[in-house]
């Protein structure tokens, strides 16, 4: 294998705690407790090592990152390390004083999630009363602070009918960017797949609406669109390739090639409490397991797309086939591709299984 390139972005999952209970939450189904979380000083060390390693961008995420009492100190540590910081928040804990302190600490960008366009839908999906109004206020606080605002709308079977209103909310709340992200199925989302998977017709309408909105609001709102794998013929280049551009650190210090990597049973990950970030990135078995193309089985091996999609998502391959090294079933060339169509055919459950601490 050629020399290992340095990473570009770090996802810091500061905590798994969150006042919301989204049934598609990307946190692992086994959530970390507050007492096991990394300290302020440990995060500051992670940021310094990440910057030295080559990371430019830092996503401060969770759970809800502002559930940490030291979120301001953590943000300041990010700036001090020279990282561009992005706060990924549900917004319900934000107030004017905290916003001002975050700006002062050097925060660069805020990404605010919305669960649905109407209050009742948002409360049902997020599992928190009064959340929507708090989010609207959070958006206003971000706007007033002068920081750029991205709205993140996770879309699925039970809110796609509100996509036009979600786009209106992005405009009303003054976001410069809107991410329309179809649910990705691992962890909690996989447990709720029957309730979340959209129909092909829903997907096609959504794709058309996004295209129309893009041209209607050009110059005012940028829309990023993440399509769902289950209706695809080619997999996504998950994380831009395993151990290639991206790394995540979990609330208790595990260094992961992807925030969902812990769903791969049997895989052991380095921890920053007993390893440097550099050793984790370059030397650990976990990061080297699926780096590059040498590990690939057929049909990926020798495929012309191997260095474009890197064989797709390892977590999805594991979740659906039980083998993390298999070709992502999202690929039409995968022998397991039929599993996706079968899942779509079976979907239609109305009830959610909300995320919770076990």
């Amino acid at each position, binding site marked *: 294998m050629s020399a290992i390139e340095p990473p*570009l972005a770090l996802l810091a999952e500061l905590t798994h705690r969150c006042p919301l209970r989204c049934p598609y939450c990307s946190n692992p189904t086994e959530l970390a407790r507050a007492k096991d979380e990394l300290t302020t000083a440990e995060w500051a060390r992670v940021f310094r090592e990440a*910057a030295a390693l*080559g990371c430019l961008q830092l996503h401060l995420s969770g759970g809800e990152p502002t559930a940490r009492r030291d979120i301001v100190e953590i943000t300041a540590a990010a700036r001090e390390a020279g990282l*561009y910081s992005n706060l990924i928040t549900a917004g319900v804990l934000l107030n004017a004083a905290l916003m001002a302190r975050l700006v002062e600490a050097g925060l*660069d*960008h805020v990404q605010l999630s919305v669960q649905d366009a109407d209050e009742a839908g948002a409360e049902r999906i997020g599992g928190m009363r009064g959340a929507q109004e708090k989010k609207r206020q959070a958006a206003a606080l971000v706007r007033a602070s*002068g*920081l*750029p605002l991205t709205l993140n709308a996770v879309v699925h079977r039970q809110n796609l009918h509100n996509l036009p209103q979600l786009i209106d909310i992005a405009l009303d709340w003054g976001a410069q960017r809107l991410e329309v992200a179809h649910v990705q199925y691992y962890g909690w989302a996989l447990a709720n797949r029957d309730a979340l998977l959209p129909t092909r017709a829903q997907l096609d309408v959504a794709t058309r609406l996004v295209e129309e909105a893009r041209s209607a609001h050009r110059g005012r709102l940028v829309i990023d669109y993440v399509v769902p794998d289950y209706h695809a013929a080619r997999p996504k280049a998950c994380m831009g390739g395993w151990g290639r551009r991206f790394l995540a650190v979990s609330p208790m210090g595990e260094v992961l090639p992807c925030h969902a990597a812990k769903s791969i049973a049997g895989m052991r990950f380095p921890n920053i409490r007993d390893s440097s970030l550099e050793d984790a990135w370059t030397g650990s078995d976990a990061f080297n397991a699926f780096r590059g193309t040498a590990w690939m089985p057929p049909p990926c091996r020798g495929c012309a797309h191997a260095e474009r999609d890197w064989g797709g998502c390892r977590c999805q391959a594991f979740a659906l086939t039980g083998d993390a090294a298999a070709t992502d079933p999202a690929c039409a060339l995968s022998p397991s591709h039929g599993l996706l169509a079968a899942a779509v055919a079976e979907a239609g459950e109305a009830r959610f299984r909300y995320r919770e601490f076990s």
Partner: protein
Amino acid sequence: MRRRSTPSGSRPAIGGDVIPKFGPGVRLQEDKARARWIVMAPERMFLPDETALEVLRLVDGTRDEGAIVALLAEKFAAPAEEIRADVAEMLRDLIAKGALRE
């Protein structure tokens, strides 16, 4: 980018009166590991070429275009007139890319 109002009839300042600024959430950041500078923006980043970098380094939200031209003329020991057009084009390009603000 903000234009200072020029009272009608008065001569515009030599070298341009436009004050370029970084857009919200945009900043120039050193990429030490790769020995280069990057323009960081919300959810994206881009690599300025050498000329763009020279201009971007002088953007501080207070210097106008004329001041930037003058500083570059001094740094490269070149006549300001030769540099002015390049800087103007570079600024337009950076605005189109969303790095700088109109």
